Protein backbone atom coordinates (compact mmCIF):
# COMPACT_ATOMS: atom_id res chain seq x y z
CA UNK A 1 0.00 0.00 0.00
CA UNK A 2 2.85 2.34 0.83
CA UNK A 3 4.33 1.46 -2.55
CA UNK A 4 1.11 2.38 -4.35
CA UNK A 5 0.96 5.72 -2.57
CA UNK A 6 4.59 6.47 -3.43
CA UNK A 7 3.95 5.57 -7.04
CA UNK A 8 0.91 7.84 -7.05
CA UNK A 9 2.88 10.80 -5.69
CA UNK A 10 5.77 10.51 -8.13
CA UNK A 11 3.34 9.77 -10.95
CA UNK A 12 1.52 13.03 -10.39
CA UNK A 13 4.77 15.00 -10.23
CA UNK A 14 6.06 13.30 -13.35
CA UNK A 15 2.78 13.88 -15.13
CA UNK A 16 2.76 17.59 -14.51
CA UNK A 17 6.42 18.09 -15.47
CA UNK A 18 6.15 16.03 -18.63
CA UNK A 19 2.87 17.73 -19.50
CA UNK A 20 4.47 21.15 -19.16
CA UNK A 21 7.47 20.08 -21.24
CA UNK A 22 5.22 18.50 -23.83
CA UNK A 23 3.18 21.68 -24.00
CA UNK A 24 6.31 23.68 -24.77
CA UNK A 25 7.51 21.13 -27.29
CA UNK A 26 4.21 21.16 -29.13
CA UNK A 27 4.27 24.90 -29.56
CA UNK A 28 7.96 25.67 -29.97
CA UNK A 29 8.91 22.45 -31.82
CA UNK A 30 12.23 21.89 -30.06
CA UNK A 31 13.41 20.37 -26.79
CA UNK A 32 13.66 23.33 -24.44
CA UNK A 33 16.07 21.70 -21.97
CA UNK A 34 16.50 24.92 -20.03
CA UNK A 35 13.04 24.02 -18.75
CA UNK A 36 14.95 22.17 -16.03
CA UNK A 37 16.14 25.44 -14.64
CA UNK A 38 12.58 26.75 -14.39
CA UNK A 39 11.78 23.89 -12.03
CA UNK A 40 14.85 24.70 -9.96
CA UNK A 41 14.11 28.42 -9.97
CA UNK A 42 10.61 27.80 -8.68
CA UNK A 43 12.05 26.01 -5.67
CA UNK A 44 14.93 28.40 -5.01
CA UNK A 45 12.85 31.56 -5.32
CA UNK A 46 10.43 30.11 -2.79
CA UNK A 47 13.41 29.46 -0.55
CA UNK A 48 14.64 33.02 -1.08
CA UNK A 49 11.32 34.67 -0.26
CA UNK A 50 10.08 32.41 2.52
CA UNK A 51 13.23 31.42 4.41
CA UNK A 52 15.80 34.08 3.62
CA UNK A 53 13.45 37.07 3.56
CA UNK A 54 11.00 35.53 6.03
CA UNK A 55 7.75 36.29 4.18
CA UNK A 56 4.70 34.08 4.53
CA UNK A 57 4.61 30.95 2.41
CA UNK A 58 1.58 32.01 0.30
CA UNK A 59 3.14 35.28 -0.85
CA UNK A 60 6.48 33.58 -1.34
CA UNK A 61 5.04 30.88 -3.58
CA UNK A 62 3.09 33.37 -5.69
CA UNK A 63 6.12 35.62 -6.16
CA UNK A 64 8.36 32.65 -6.86
CA UNK A 65 6.09 31.38 -9.63
CA UNK A 66 6.01 34.85 -11.21
CA UNK A 67 9.80 35.21 -11.04
CA UNK A 68 10.41 31.71 -12.35
CA UNK A 69 8.08 32.33 -15.28
CA UNK A 70 9.61 35.68 -16.20
CA UNK A 71 13.00 34.02 -16.83
CA UNK A 72 11.92 31.57 -19.56
CA UNK A 73 9.73 34.27 -21.08
CA UNK A 74 12.82 36.46 -21.33
CA UNK A 75 14.73 33.54 -22.88
CA UNK A 76 12.03 33.19 -25.50
CA UNK A 77 12.01 36.89 -26.31
CA UNK A 78 15.76 37.52 -26.24
CA UNK A 79 17.19 34.27 -27.57
CA UNK A 80 14.78 31.79 -29.09
CA UNK A 81 12.73 34.27 -31.10
CA UNK A 82 15.73 35.81 -32.93
CA UNK A 83 17.11 32.33 -33.52
CA UNK A 84 13.80 31.14 -34.90
CA UNK A 85 13.55 34.15 -37.18
CA UNK A 86 16.98 33.28 -38.58
CA UNK A 87 15.61 29.85 -39.42
CA UNK A 88 17.78 27.90 -36.98
CA UNK A 89 17.21 24.17 -37.10
CA UNK A 90 15.73 22.50 -34.06
CA UNK A 91 18.85 20.66 -32.88
CA UNK A 92 20.71 23.96 -32.74
CA UNK A 93 17.91 25.41 -30.63
CA UNK A 94 18.32 22.38 -28.38
CA UNK A 95 22.06 23.06 -28.03
CA UNK A 96 21.36 26.73 -27.33
CA UNK A 97 18.92 25.72 -24.60
CA UNK A 98 21.57 23.42 -23.14
CA UNK A 99 23.92 26.41 -23.07
CA UNK A 100 21.26 28.45 -21.29
CA UNK A 101 20.74 25.61 -18.84
CA UNK A 102 24.46 25.48 -18.04
CA UNK A 103 24.62 29.24 -17.48
CA UNK A 104 21.56 29.47 -15.24
CA UNK A 105 22.29 26.32 -13.26
CA UNK A 106 25.76 27.60 -12.43
CA UNK A 107 24.32 30.99 -11.48
CA UNK A 108 22.06 29.18 -9.00
CA UNK A 109 25.01 27.28 -7.55
CA UNK A 110 26.94 30.51 -7.24
CA UNK A 111 24.20 32.36 -5.40
CA UNK A 112 22.82 29.61 -3.19
CA UNK A 113 25.65 27.07 -3.00
CA UNK A 114 25.68 23.44 -4.01
CA UNK A 115 24.44 22.00 -0.72
CA UNK A 116 20.91 20.79 -0.05
CA UNK A 117 18.43 23.48 1.01
CA UNK A 118 15.03 23.04 2.61
CA UNK A 119 11.96 25.26 2.73
CA UNK A 120 10.23 23.09 5.32
CA UNK A 121 10.32 25.30 8.40
CA UNK A 122 7.63 23.28 10.18
CA UNK A 123 8.46 20.12 12.09
CA UNK A 124 8.23 16.77 10.31
CA UNK A 125 5.04 14.89 11.10
CA UNK A 126 4.41 11.21 10.55
CA UNK A 127 1.55 11.90 8.19
CA UNK A 128 -1.92 10.43 7.94
CA UNK A 129 -2.56 6.76 8.23
CA UNK A 130 -4.28 5.59 5.08
CA UNK A 131 -5.07 1.86 4.93
CA UNK A 132 -1.85 1.04 6.74
CA UNK A 133 0.29 3.41 4.69
CA UNK A 134 1.50 6.89 5.58
CA UNK A 135 0.96 9.97 3.47
CA UNK A 136 1.94 13.50 4.42
CA UNK A 137 -0.07 16.67 3.88
CA UNK A 138 2.34 17.84 1.22
CA UNK A 139 1.93 14.64 -0.74
CA UNK A 140 -1.85 14.92 -0.69
CA UNK A 141 -1.55 18.52 -1.89
CA UNK A 142 0.87 17.36 -4.62
CA UNK A 143 -1.54 14.79 -6.00
CA UNK A 144 -4.52 17.15 -5.83
CA UNK A 145 -2.73 20.12 -7.39
CA UNK A 146 -1.18 18.05 -10.19
CA UNK A 147 -4.44 16.44 -11.21
CA UNK A 148 -6.27 19.76 -11.04
CA UNK A 149 -3.64 21.53 -13.14
CA UNK A 150 -3.52 18.74 -15.69
CA UNK A 151 -7.28 18.70 -16.16
CA UNK A 152 -7.49 22.49 -15.99
CA UNK A 153 -4.89 23.09 -18.67
CA UNK A 154 -6.40 20.40 -20.89
CA UNK A 155 -9.82 22.08 -20.62
CA UNK A 156 -8.19 25.44 -21.25
CA UNK A 157 -6.55 24.13 -24.40
CA UNK A 158 -9.80 22.66 -25.61
CA UNK A 159 -12.23 25.49 -24.92
CA UNK A 160 -10.52 28.83 -24.32
CA UNK A 161 -9.73 31.06 -27.27
CA UNK A 162 -6.03 31.27 -26.45
CA UNK A 163 -5.92 27.52 -25.93
CA UNK A 164 -7.40 26.98 -29.38
CA UNK A 165 -4.78 29.30 -30.85
CA UNK A 166 -2.05 27.33 -29.09
CA UNK A 167 -3.39 24.12 -30.56
CA UNK A 168 -3.60 25.74 -33.99
CA UNK A 169 0.03 26.85 -33.88
CA UNK A 170 1.21 23.47 -32.65
CA UNK A 171 -0.51 21.68 -35.49
CA UNK A 172 0.49 24.05 -38.29
CA UNK A 173 2.37 27.27 -37.67
CA UNK A 174 2.32 28.76 -41.15
CA UNK A 175 -1.34 28.12 -41.70
CA UNK A 176 -2.25 29.79 -38.41
CA UNK A 177 -0.13 32.79 -39.37
CA UNK A 178 -2.22 33.05 -42.52
CA UNK A 179 -5.37 33.02 -40.39
CA UNK A 180 -4.08 35.98 -38.41
CA UNK A 181 -2.76 34.23 -35.34
CA UNK A 182 0.59 35.71 -34.35
CA UNK A 183 2.68 32.62 -33.75
CA UNK A 184 5.34 34.53 -31.79
CA UNK A 185 2.72 35.67 -29.31
CA UNK A 186 1.22 32.20 -29.02
CA UNK A 187 4.65 30.61 -28.50
CA UNK A 188 5.34 33.15 -25.75
CA UNK A 189 2.06 32.14 -24.11
CA UNK A 190 3.02 28.51 -24.48
CA UNK A 191 6.25 29.27 -22.66
CA UNK A 192 4.39 31.09 -19.91
CA UNK A 193 1.88 28.29 -19.35
CA UNK A 194 4.46 25.53 -19.51
CA UNK A 195 6.83 27.37 -17.20
CA UNK A 196 4.09 28.06 -14.68
CA UNK A 197 3.36 24.34 -14.46
CA UNK A 198 7.08 23.59 -14.14
CA UNK A 199 7.60 26.18 -11.40
CA UNK A 200 4.66 24.77 -9.43
CA UNK A 201 6.10 21.28 -9.84
CA UNK A 202 9.46 22.52 -8.60
CA UNK A 203 7.88 24.04 -5.50
CA UNK A 204 5.95 20.83 -4.79
CA UNK A 205 9.11 18.75 -5.13
CA UNK A 206 10.99 21.10 -2.83
CA UNK A 207 8.21 20.90 -0.24
CA UNK A 208 8.19 17.12 -0.34
CA UNK A 209 11.90 16.35 -0.56
CA UNK A 210 14.62 19.00 -0.52
CA UNK A 211 16.39 20.91 -3.26
CA UNK A 212 19.77 21.06 -4.93
CA UNK A 213 20.79 23.10 -7.99
CA UNK A 214 20.63 20.05 -10.25
CA UNK A 215 17.22 18.77 -9.12
CA UNK A 216 15.46 20.22 -12.13
CA UNK A 217 17.55 18.34 -14.63
CA UNK A 218 16.90 14.98 -12.98
CA UNK A 219 13.17 15.55 -12.95
CA UNK A 220 13.19 16.82 -16.50
CA UNK A 221 15.08 13.79 -17.78
CA UNK A 222 12.43 11.52 -16.31
CA UNK A 223 9.75 13.71 -17.80
CA UNK A 224 11.31 13.55 -21.26
CA UNK A 225 11.51 9.76 -20.97
CA UNK A 226 7.84 9.65 -19.95
CA UNK A 227 6.99 11.86 -22.89
CA UNK A 228 8.83 9.71 -25.42
CA UNK A 229 7.38 6.49 -23.95
CA UNK A 230 3.93 7.95 -24.05
CA UNK A 231 4.31 9.07 -27.60
CA UNK A 232 4.67 12.70 -28.60
CA UNK A 233 1.47 14.49 -29.40
CA UNK A 234 -0.99 12.77 -27.11
CA UNK A 235 -2.02 13.68 -23.57
CA UNK A 236 -3.43 10.24 -22.85
CA UNK A 237 -0.10 8.73 -23.81
CA UNK A 238 1.55 11.06 -21.30
CA UNK A 239 -0.57 9.62 -18.50
CA UNK A 240 0.41 6.09 -19.54
CA UNK A 241 4.08 6.97 -19.89
CA UNK A 242 4.27 8.74 -16.54
CA UNK A 243 2.40 5.92 -14.81
CA UNK A 244 4.61 3.21 -16.29
CA UNK A 245 7.78 5.11 -15.47
CA UNK A 246 6.78 5.88 -11.89
CA UNK A 247 5.74 2.27 -11.29
CA UNK A 248 8.95 0.87 -12.73
CA UNK A 249 11.10 3.25 -10.74
CA UNK A 250 9.45 2.49 -7.45
CA UNK A 251 9.47 -1.24 -8.08
CA UNK A 252 13.17 -1.09 -8.87
CA UNK A 253 13.79 1.02 -5.79
CA UNK A 254 11.83 -1.46 -3.71
CA UNK A 255 13.31 -4.67 -5.06
CA UNK A 256 16.83 -3.67 -6.15
CA UNK A 257 18.12 -0.37 -4.82
CA UNK A 258 16.98 3.22 -5.01
CA UNK A 259 20.25 4.34 -6.55
CA UNK A 260 19.46 2.53 -9.79
CA UNK A 261 16.30 4.57 -10.47
CA UNK A 262 18.01 6.68 -13.17
CA UNK A 263 19.25 3.63 -15.00
CA UNK A 264 15.82 1.95 -14.80
CA UNK A 265 14.18 4.91 -16.48
CA UNK A 266 16.51 4.73 -19.43
CA UNK A 267 16.42 0.97 -19.71
CA UNK A 268 12.64 1.22 -20.06
CA UNK A 269 13.13 3.85 -22.73
CA UNK A 270 15.53 1.57 -24.60
CA UNK A 271 13.16 -1.39 -24.36
CA UNK A 272 10.44 0.81 -25.78
CA UNK A 273 12.66 1.90 -28.63
CA UNK A 274 13.32 -1.71 -29.52
CA UNK A 275 9.78 -3.04 -29.42
CA UNK A 276 7.50 -0.07 -29.69
CA UNK A 277 9.43 2.85 -31.17
CA UNK A 278 6.37 5.03 -31.48
CA UNK A 279 5.44 5.01 -27.83
CA UNK A 280 1.93 4.13 -26.67
CA UNK A 281 0.62 6.36 -29.40
CA UNK A 282 1.96 9.21 -31.40
CA UNK A 283 3.77 10.32 -34.46
CA UNK A 284 6.55 8.57 -36.30
CA UNK A 285 10.10 9.43 -35.33
CA UNK A 286 11.59 8.52 -38.68
CA UNK A 287 12.10 11.19 -41.29
CA UNK A 288 10.35 9.41 -44.12
CA UNK A 289 8.95 5.94 -44.31
CA UNK A 290 10.09 4.09 -47.40
Amino acid at each position, binding site marked *: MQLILNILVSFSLLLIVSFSFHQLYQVAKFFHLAHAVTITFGAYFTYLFSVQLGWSLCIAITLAIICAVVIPAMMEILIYKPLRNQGTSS*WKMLIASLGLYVILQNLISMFWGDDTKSIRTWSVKTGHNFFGAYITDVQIITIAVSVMLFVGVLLFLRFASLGKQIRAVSSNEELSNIFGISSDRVILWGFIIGSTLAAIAGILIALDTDMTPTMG*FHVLLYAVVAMIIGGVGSSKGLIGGALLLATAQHLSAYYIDSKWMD*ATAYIILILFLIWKPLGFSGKRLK*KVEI
Partner: protein
Amino acid sequence: MEYILHLLIFISIYIILAQSLSLTAGFSGLISLAHVGFYGVGAYTTAILSVNYGIPFLVTLPLAMLLSGLIAIVVSTISLRTVDDYFIIITLGIQVVVFSVMNNWQVLTRGPLGIPGIPSIKILGFPFDTKISFLLLSLFFVGIVWFLLNNISRSPFGRVLIALSEDEIFTKSLGKNVYKAKIISFTISAMFASIAGVLYAHYISYIDPTSFTINESIFILSIVIIGGMRNLWKIALAAAFLVLLPEALRFVGMPNSIAANMRQIIYGIVLIMVIFKNSDNFKSRSSFYTS
Protein backbone atom coordinates in the same frame (compact mmCIF):
# COMPACT_ATOMS: atom_id res chain seq x y z
CA MET B 1 56.86 25.72 -17.24
CA GLU B 2 55.23 22.73 -15.53
CA TYR B 3 51.96 24.64 -15.67
CA ILE B 4 52.26 25.24 -19.40
CA LEU B 5 53.08 21.57 -20.01
CA HIS B 6 50.04 20.59 -17.93
CA LEU B 7 47.81 22.80 -20.06
CA LEU B 8 49.30 21.41 -23.26
CA ILE B 9 48.58 17.84 -22.11
CA PHE B 10 44.98 18.80 -21.39
CA ILE B 11 44.68 20.49 -24.76
CA SER B 12 45.87 17.35 -26.51
CA ILE B 13 43.43 15.15 -24.57
CA TYR B 14 40.59 17.47 -25.56
CA ILE B 15 41.77 17.55 -29.17
CA ILE B 16 41.42 13.76 -29.29
CA LEU B 17 37.97 13.95 -27.70
CA ALA B 18 36.68 16.75 -29.88
CA GLN B 19 38.06 15.42 -33.16
CA SER B 20 36.62 11.99 -32.51
CA LEU B 21 33.25 13.54 -31.69
CA SER B 22 33.51 15.47 -34.95
CA LEU B 23 33.33 12.16 -36.81
CA THR B 24 29.80 11.52 -35.51
CA ALA B 25 28.56 15.04 -34.87
CA GLY B 26 30.17 16.76 -37.81
CA PHE B 27 30.52 14.23 -40.58
CA SER B 28 27.51 12.02 -40.04
CA GLY B 29 25.36 14.67 -38.35
CA LEU B 30 24.56 12.66 -35.22
CA ILE B 31 24.89 15.04 -32.30
CA SER B 32 25.96 12.82 -29.40
CA LEU B 33 25.99 13.85 -25.76
CA ALA B 34 27.25 10.41 -24.72
CA HIS B 35 30.82 11.06 -25.77
CA VAL B 36 32.05 11.66 -22.25
CA GLY B 37 30.52 8.31 -21.32
CA PHE B 38 32.99 6.53 -23.62
CA TYR B 39 35.79 8.75 -22.38
CA GLY B 40 34.86 7.56 -18.88
CA VAL B 41 34.66 3.92 -19.98
CA GLY B 42 38.23 4.19 -21.25
CA ALA B 43 39.46 5.84 -18.07
CA TYR B 44 37.72 3.35 -15.78
CA THR B 45 38.84 0.29 -17.78
CA THR B 46 42.48 1.23 -17.61
CA ALA B 47 42.23 2.32 -13.97
CA ILE B 48 40.59 -0.89 -12.77
CA LEU B 49 42.86 -3.15 -14.79
CA SER B 50 46.11 -1.44 -13.89
CA VAL B 51 45.36 -0.81 -10.21
CA ASN B 52 43.78 -4.15 -9.37
CA TYR B 53 45.67 -6.48 -11.68
CA GLY B 54 48.81 -4.55 -12.60
CA ILE B 55 48.21 -4.96 -16.34
CA PRO B 56 50.53 -2.74 -18.43
CA PHE B 57 49.41 0.17 -20.57
CA LEU B 58 50.00 -1.54 -23.90
CA VAL B 59 47.39 -4.15 -22.98
CA THR B 60 44.85 -1.91 -21.25
CA LEU B 61 44.68 0.55 -24.14
CA PRO B 62 43.38 -1.97 -26.72
CA LEU B 63 41.10 -3.50 -24.09
CA ALA B 64 39.63 -0.11 -23.25
CA MET B 65 39.10 0.64 -26.93
CA LEU B 66 37.51 -2.75 -27.47
CA LEU B 67 35.17 -2.38 -24.51
CA SER B 68 33.93 1.07 -25.45
CA GLY B 69 33.64 -0.05 -29.06
CA LEU B 70 31.41 -2.94 -28.01
CA ILE B 71 29.29 -0.69 -25.82
CA ALA B 72 29.03 1.78 -28.69
CA ILE B 73 27.86 -0.89 -31.13
CA VAL B 74 25.13 -2.09 -28.78
CA VAL B 75 24.05 1.38 -27.81
CA SER B 76 24.05 2.82 -31.32
CA THR B 77 22.15 -0.10 -32.81
CA ILE B 78 19.31 0.78 -30.45
CA SER B 79 19.52 4.54 -30.37
CA LEU B 80 19.88 4.99 -34.11
CA ARG B 81 16.29 3.88 -34.47
CA THR B 82 15.48 7.51 -33.76
CA VAL B 83 16.57 10.64 -35.55
CA ASP B 84 17.58 14.25 -34.87
CA ASP B 85 16.42 15.69 -31.55
CA TYR B 86 15.27 12.34 -30.24
CA PHE B 87 18.70 10.90 -30.87
CA ILE B 88 20.25 13.70 -28.82
CA ILE B 89 17.90 12.91 -25.95
CA ILE B 90 18.71 9.19 -26.15
CA THR B 91 22.44 9.89 -26.05
CA LEU B 92 21.80 12.11 -23.06
CA GLY B 93 20.15 9.07 -21.50
CA ILE B 94 23.13 6.83 -22.30
CA GLN B 95 25.37 9.38 -20.62
CA VAL B 96 23.15 9.32 -17.52
CA VAL B 97 23.21 5.52 -17.41
CA VAL B 98 27.01 5.35 -17.78
CA PHE B 99 27.42 7.96 -15.07
CA SER B 100 25.07 6.11 -12.76
CA VAL B 101 27.00 2.87 -13.32
CA MET B 102 30.26 4.62 -12.45
CA ASN B 103 28.69 6.24 -9.43
CA ASN B 104 26.73 3.27 -8.08
CA TRP B 105 28.50 0.03 -8.97
CA GLN B 106 30.65 0.38 -5.89
CA VAL B 107 32.18 -3.11 -5.96
CA LEU B 108 33.85 -2.36 -9.26
CA THR B 109 34.34 1.40 -9.43
CA ARG B 110 34.35 2.37 -5.74
CA GLY B 111 31.53 4.82 -6.53
CA PRO B 112 31.99 8.47 -5.60
CA LEU B 113 35.25 7.69 -3.78
CA GLY B 114 36.99 7.22 -7.12
CA ILE B 115 40.05 5.12 -7.92
CA PRO B 116 43.34 6.55 -6.60
CA GLY B 117 46.92 5.48 -7.33
CA ILE B 118 46.76 4.72 -11.05
CA PRO B 119 50.40 4.04 -12.05
CA SER B 120 52.11 6.12 -14.70
CA ILE B 121 52.51 4.71 -18.18
CA LYS B 122 55.47 2.41 -18.84
CA ILE B 123 56.20 1.19 -22.36
CA LEU B 124 58.93 -1.45 -22.75
CA GLY B 125 60.53 -0.41 -19.49
CA PHE B 126 60.59 3.31 -20.32
CA PRO B 127 58.50 5.27 -17.82
CA PHE B 128 56.48 8.28 -18.97
CA ASP B 129 56.39 9.90 -15.55
CA THR B 130 57.68 13.39 -16.33
CA LYS B 131 55.34 15.96 -17.84
CA ILE B 132 57.43 16.51 -20.92
CA SER B 133 57.56 12.82 -21.81
CA PHE B 134 53.83 12.43 -21.20
CA LEU B 135 53.17 15.41 -23.43
CA LEU B 136 55.16 13.77 -26.22
CA LEU B 137 53.20 10.54 -25.75
CA SER B 138 49.86 12.30 -25.90
CA LEU B 139 50.96 14.33 -28.92
CA PHE B 140 51.82 11.02 -30.55
CA PHE B 141 48.26 9.82 -29.95
CA VAL B 142 46.84 13.13 -31.18
CA GLY B 143 48.85 12.59 -34.34
CA ILE B 144 47.54 9.08 -34.85
CA VAL B 145 43.91 10.02 -34.24
CA TRP B 146 44.20 13.11 -36.43
CA PHE B 147 45.81 11.10 -39.24
CA LEU B 148 43.19 8.36 -39.07
CA LEU B 149 40.26 10.78 -38.91
CA ASN B 150 41.65 12.78 -41.79
CA ASN B 151 41.93 9.62 -43.87
CA ILE B 152 38.52 8.34 -42.86
CA SER B 153 36.90 11.61 -43.82
CA ARG B 154 38.49 11.54 -47.28
CA SER B 155 37.77 7.88 -47.89
CA PRO B 156 34.67 6.66 -49.74
CA PHE B 157 33.21 5.84 -46.32
CA GLY B 158 33.69 9.44 -45.21
CA ARG B 159 31.90 10.64 -48.33
CA VAL B 160 28.98 8.37 -47.46
CA LEU B 161 28.86 9.94 -43.99
CA ILE B 162 28.85 13.47 -45.39
CA ALA B 163 26.19 12.51 -47.90
CA LEU B 164 23.92 10.94 -45.31
CA SER B 165 24.21 13.96 -43.05
CA GLU B 166 23.07 16.16 -45.92
CA ASP B 167 20.29 13.97 -47.25
CA GLU B 168 19.68 10.61 -45.68
CA ILE B 169 16.94 9.41 -48.00
CA PHE B 170 18.92 10.30 -51.10
CA THR B 171 21.98 8.43 -49.83
CA LYS B 172 19.76 5.45 -49.18
CA SER B 173 18.47 5.63 -52.72
CA LEU B 174 22.07 5.35 -53.99
CA GLY B 175 22.22 1.93 -52.38
CA LYS B 176 24.36 2.90 -49.39
CA ASN B 177 23.64 1.24 -46.08
CA VAL B 178 22.98 4.36 -44.03
CA TYR B 179 22.18 2.58 -40.78
CA LYS B 180 25.42 0.59 -40.87
CA ALA B 181 27.51 3.63 -41.78
CA LYS B 182 26.08 5.53 -38.83
CA ILE B 183 26.83 2.66 -36.44
CA ILE B 184 30.40 2.33 -37.71
CA SER B 185 31.09 6.05 -37.36
CA PHE B 186 29.59 6.10 -33.86
CA THR B 187 31.74 3.12 -32.85
CA ILE B 188 34.98 4.50 -34.25
CA SER B 189 34.45 7.78 -32.49
CA ALA B 190 33.71 5.99 -29.20
CA MET B 191 36.92 3.98 -29.52
CA PHE B 192 38.99 7.11 -30.07
CA ALA B 193 37.30 8.77 -27.10
CA SER B 194 38.42 5.91 -24.90
CA ILE B 195 42.06 6.59 -25.89
CA ALA B 196 41.65 10.06 -24.40
CA GLY B 197 40.16 8.46 -21.28
CA VAL B 198 43.13 6.11 -20.88
CA LEU B 199 45.57 8.99 -21.20
CA TYR B 200 43.59 11.10 -18.72
CA ALA B 201 43.47 8.33 -16.10
CA HIS B 202 47.21 7.67 -16.25
CA TYR B 203 48.04 11.35 -16.25
CA ILE B 204 45.89 12.48 -13.31
CA SER B 205 46.41 9.09 -11.53
CA TYR B 206 43.06 9.52 -9.77
CA ILE B 207 39.59 9.32 -11.32
CA ASP B 208 36.11 9.75 -9.92
CA PRO B 209 32.69 9.99 -11.61
CA THR B 210 32.54 13.80 -11.35
CA SER B 211 35.05 14.10 -14.23
CA PHE B 212 32.56 12.43 -16.56
CA THR B 213 29.34 14.38 -16.09
CA ILE B 214 26.93 15.75 -18.64
CA ASN B 215 28.54 19.20 -18.33
CA GLU B 216 31.74 17.74 -19.73
CA SER B 217 29.77 16.34 -22.67
CA ILE B 218 28.34 19.75 -23.37
CA PHE B 219 31.84 21.19 -23.18
CA ILE B 220 33.23 18.78 -25.78
CA LEU B 221 30.24 19.36 -28.02
CA SER B 222 30.81 23.10 -27.78
CA ILE B 223 34.43 22.62 -28.89
CA VAL B 224 33.16 20.79 -31.96
CA ILE B 225 30.50 23.39 -32.69
CA ILE B 226 32.91 26.29 -32.26
CA GLY B 227 35.44 24.50 -34.47
CA GLY B 228 32.92 24.33 -37.27
CA MET B 229 31.81 20.68 -36.94
CA ARG B 230 33.98 19.14 -39.70
CA ASN B 231 37.21 21.07 -39.82
CA LEU B 232 39.84 19.12 -37.85
CA TRP B 233 42.30 22.03 -37.75
CA LYS B 234 39.74 24.49 -36.47
CA ILE B 235 38.52 21.96 -33.90
CA ALA B 236 42.08 21.62 -32.57
CA LEU B 237 42.32 25.41 -32.32
CA ALA B 238 38.92 25.59 -30.62
CA ALA B 239 40.02 22.97 -28.08
CA ALA B 240 43.10 25.02 -27.25
CA PHE B 241 41.03 28.19 -27.03
CA LEU B 242 38.36 26.75 -24.75
CA VAL B 243 40.87 25.05 -22.44
CA LEU B 244 42.93 28.23 -22.14
CA LEU B 245 39.98 30.64 -21.79
CA PRO B 246 39.11 29.86 -18.15
CA GLU B 247 42.80 29.92 -17.24
CA ALA B 248 42.61 33.65 -17.88
CA LEU B 249 40.25 33.77 -14.90
CA ARG B 250 43.14 32.78 -12.63
CA PHE B 251 45.01 35.91 -13.58
CA VAL B 252 42.00 38.12 -13.01
CA GLY B 253 42.05 36.91 -9.42
CA MET B 254 38.72 35.12 -9.31
CA PRO B 255 38.22 33.31 -6.00
CA ASN B 256 38.43 29.55 -6.33
CA SER B 257 34.95 28.91 -4.96
CA ILE B 258 33.20 30.49 -7.92
CA ALA B 259 35.87 29.87 -10.57
CA ALA B 260 34.45 26.46 -11.51
CA ASN B 261 30.98 27.91 -11.96
CA MET B 262 32.32 30.89 -13.88
CA ARG B 263 34.11 28.48 -16.19
CA GLN B 264 30.84 26.70 -17.03
CA ILE B 265 29.04 30.01 -17.48
CA ILE B 266 31.67 31.20 -19.95
CA TYR B 267 31.29 27.99 -21.96
CA GLY B 268 27.53 28.45 -22.04
CA ILE B 269 27.82 32.03 -23.23
CA VAL B 270 30.35 31.12 -25.93
CA LEU B 271 28.12 28.29 -27.10
CA ILE B 272 25.06 30.52 -27.45
CA MET B 273 27.08 33.21 -29.20
CA VAL B 274 28.41 30.71 -31.74
CA ILE B 275 24.94 29.36 -32.44
CA PHE B 276 23.73 32.91 -33.01
CA LYS B 277 26.58 33.76 -35.32
CA ASN B 278 26.55 30.60 -37.41
CA SER B 279 22.88 29.92 -37.45
CA ASP B 280 22.56 29.98 -41.25
CA ASN B 281 23.43 26.32 -41.79
CA PHE B 282 27.12 26.26 -40.96
CA LYS B 283 26.79 22.52 -41.04
CA SER B 284 26.39 22.04 -44.74
CA ARG B 285 28.57 24.96 -45.75
CA SER B 286 31.71 23.50 -44.18
CA SER B 287 34.61 21.75 -45.78
CA PHE B 288 32.90 19.46 -48.22
CA TYR B 289 35.20 20.17 -51.13
CA THR B 290 38.25 21.62 -49.47
CA SER B 291 39.16 18.97 -46.95
